[in-house]
């Protein structure tokens, strides 16, 4: 009970300190001696401390199942395993916002400690913008989604955590994603501060680069974890569904990817100032926009745990406040860029980075339109539609081909001047080689659609060239090469996966068997067991293949009682080149099961390649700053 008050008061203290920092940093901007730097340091630390206090009280409330707390009541349950009691803390709207606040305060503190080589007024301004964001979240937490609401009389039992959220992956997916989102706020604040002070230059880029890479790496990993979760837990047999929420997490990633390239160009060549600032703004506002779309219930998907329009309204106002703030600041201070009109040669790294930006912007707008178009249509004409995978596939896949080719050539071009095309022959040979390779692959597996073959050729091209670079360049700029190699592997695995996936669906009773190419799938027996907080129905399947060992798959159906939900746990056998995926569903008022068996090649490689991509980012974070190449 007392923890409820402790958490709440810690939040209030956070608010007070935040206001103090806000006001003093404004007065500091005019009079720098007014406020000692050390004080700000301490204040930021105390704010972080109170956020930790508040968050840990919520965690303890969850652990001891204190149902006088409304958040605990709605999202926990006595019989839940301890691990999920803890992860339940951020598996709901209020708790996840508190986590968001915690990370925000931490990074504000961390930024201030690590930016001593920046001009004081730029740091102050950055903290000021950061404080605006933190205040927004604090007001929202205290006003519309307080995690410490008290219920009286105290109920004896909680309502339980949504079972599909009871998964170890989902315990770490949101925190990792949040780390990514929140670091973009530092990039956002710092770029606005730099814009106002006219500090956007190569030195600024050098300092902010680390933050960009940190957030990019976390976002990549966060999306990967979410995607793995969707594959194993939702049992839909895929890893990406163009679900609104997935799109929302992908959009900031795309603009951040473009930003990564721009920051590098700004650092090395002092170009693309406005691109960098605009992309910083876009990335962060897309993150908040995502929060709005997911949390307000304006879109519905697996992630919508709070359908409260009042909350949505608050986030909407906050979102547009930030958007207008940054847009006006941009318009006013736009002229402050230190522009040096360098001539852009066609065959240079600069050009390929700009090309990359435009491609990414195109992908971004396709996804953005696909995600919010249903809302526009609904409001304007009352018509309800949902945009599905065909839309995205049609608009994105054709443009992926030139994108991949530019991606293979671009990194090998030099800044300003270029002598790469003297080695034209090698490039052409590799290109022909990849066309032959892709034709062979397509022919061999009996798929002869032209566009797929070309796409395959383009990704083979990128794949071979990045491998060549990896071997040839060795440790020079290897973070970039690794990420690009990972990306080519990702595209390749996704392609091969989607071309060669095979599946069969059938209704089966115990003892039935079905044929699938050269295999026989048998349903041997069913078994019921009782677990801590759910009932389990296990089906034992045997898959016999000629000349090969038998494989037993044991998919499950789980029936949770708090709240009453049925989930399907797919049985997945992962091999290096192929995943075998079996999921069962209950058919209402029938004794048979609905069985879906899939063979999905290269699933493992999709995960591996995403890890390789983020590895490139991690290497860059820990890499010592190289000497300036100008």
């Amino acid at each position: 009970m007392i923890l409820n008050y402790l958490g709440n008061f810690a939040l209030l203290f956070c608010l007070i300190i935040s206001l103090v920092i806000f006001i003093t940093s404004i007065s500091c901007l005019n009079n720098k001696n007014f406020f000692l730097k050390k004080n700000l340091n301490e204040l930021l630390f105390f704010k972080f401390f109170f956020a930790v206090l508040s968050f840990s009280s919520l965690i303890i409330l969850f652990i001891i199942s204190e149902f006088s707390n409304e958040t605990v009541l709605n999202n926990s349950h006595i019989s839940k395993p301890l691990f999920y009691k803890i992860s339940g803390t951020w598996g709901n709207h209020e708790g996840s916002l508190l986590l968001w606040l915690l990370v925000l305060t931490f990074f504000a503190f961390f930024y201030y400690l690590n930016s001593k080589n920046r001009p004081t007024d730029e740091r102050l301004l950055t903290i000021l913008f950061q404080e605006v964001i933190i205040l927004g979240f604090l007001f929202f937490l205290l006003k519309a989604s307080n995690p410490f609401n008290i219920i009286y009389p105290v109920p004896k039992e909680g309502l339980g955590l949504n079972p599909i959220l009871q998964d170890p992956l989902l315990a770490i997916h949101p925190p990792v994603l949040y780390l990514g989102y929140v670091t973009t706020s530092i990039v956002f604040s710092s770029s606005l501060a730099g814009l106002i002070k006219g500090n956007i230059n190569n030195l600024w880029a050098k300092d902010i680069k680390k933050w960009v890479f940190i957030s990019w790496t976390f976002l990549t990993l966060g999306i990967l974890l979410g995607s793995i979760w969707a594959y194993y837990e939702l049992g839909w047999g895929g890893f990406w569904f163009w679900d609104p929420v997935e799109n929302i997490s992908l959009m900031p990633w795309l603009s951040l990817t473009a930003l990564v390239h721009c920051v590098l160009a700004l650092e090395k060549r002092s170009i693309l100032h406005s691109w960098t600032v605009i992309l910083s703004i876009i990335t962060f506002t897309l993150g908040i926009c995502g929060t709005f779309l997911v949390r307000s219930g304006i879109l519905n998907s697996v992630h919508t745990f709070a359908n409260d329009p009042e909350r949505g309204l608050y986030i909407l106002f906050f979102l547009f406040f930030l958007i207008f703030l940054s847009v006006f600041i941009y318009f006013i201070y736009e002229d402050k860029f230190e522009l040096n009109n360098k001539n852009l040669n066609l065959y240079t790294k600069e050009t390929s980075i700009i090309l990359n930006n435009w491609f990414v912007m195109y992908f971004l707008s396709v996804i953005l339109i696909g995600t919010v178009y249903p809302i526009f249509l609904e409001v304007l004409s009352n018509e309800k539609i949902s945009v599905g995978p065909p839309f995205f596939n049609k608009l994105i896949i054709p443009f992926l081909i030139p994108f991949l080719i530019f991606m293979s050539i671009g990194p090998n071009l030099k800044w300003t001047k270029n002598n790469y095309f003297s080695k034209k022959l090698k490039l052409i040979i590799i290109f022909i080689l990849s066309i032959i390779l892709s034709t062979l692959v397509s022919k061999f597996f009996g798929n002869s659609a032209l566009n797929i073959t070309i796409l395959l050729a383009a990704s083979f091209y990128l794949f071979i060239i990045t491998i060549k670079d990896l071997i040839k360049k060795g440790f020079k700029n290897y973070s970039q090469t690794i990420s690009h190699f990972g990306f080519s592997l990702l595209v390749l695995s996704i392609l091969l996966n989607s071309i060669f996936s095979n599946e069969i669906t059938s209704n089966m009773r115990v003892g039935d068997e079905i044929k699938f190419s050269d295999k026989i799938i048998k349903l041997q027996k069913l078994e019921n067991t009782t677990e801590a907080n759910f009932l389990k129905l296990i089906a034992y399947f045997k898959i016999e293949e000629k000349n090969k060992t038998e494989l037993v798959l044991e998919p499950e159906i789980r029936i949770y009682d708090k709240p009453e939900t049925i989930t399907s746990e797919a049985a997945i056998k992962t091999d290096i080149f192929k995943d075998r995926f079996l999921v069962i569903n209950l058919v209402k008022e029938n004794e048979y099961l609905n069985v879906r068996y899939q063979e999905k090649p290269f699933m493992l490689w999709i995960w591996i390649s995403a890890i390789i991509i983020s590895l490139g980012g991690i290497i860059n974070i820990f890499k010592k700053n190289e000497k300036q190449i100008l």
Partner: protein
Amino acid sequence: MKNRYYKYSIVIFLIFTFFIFYYGLKEKNFYTPEDISIKKFPNLILNDFYTNTKTSFDDILIGSNYYLVNIWASWCLPCREEHPYLVQLKKNLSIKIIGINYKDKRDNALKFLDEYDNPYSVILNDNNGTASIEIGAYGVPESFILNTEKKIIKKIIGPIDKKKFNEIKKLIKK
């Protein structure tokens, strides 16, 4: 000049987007799928508060599109707070309100109803509190809103306040 136009158009576009989102929020829950797991209200047999005759819920839950089953007691302070809302619900909306009097003394309960008005169409006795547990209540007060098919479409733990009252209103008007 050109520069200024592009600034204006960006701002106008953003304002437009804002209003689309704003009105999008008002249209609630576009794609909410029908919840098929909704529980049916158990058919219990309890004694009538006034006549003390055995009455089953099946006999009471007829003749209205919505029902509100409210568990209350005269000793329960939050019940006093929520009572005016029940009276208002009764006055303004076509909802049949059924009271379950939970572990209460008859005299006190009668006094309570005299003092605060009686919004209930029927009141049933739950002297030992078993029926309330069977319904799935956590405590007093608690309310269940049922539709014509006697399915629980909403459960309110704790007293009905202004916010909950508006939610109920919205639910019924839908």
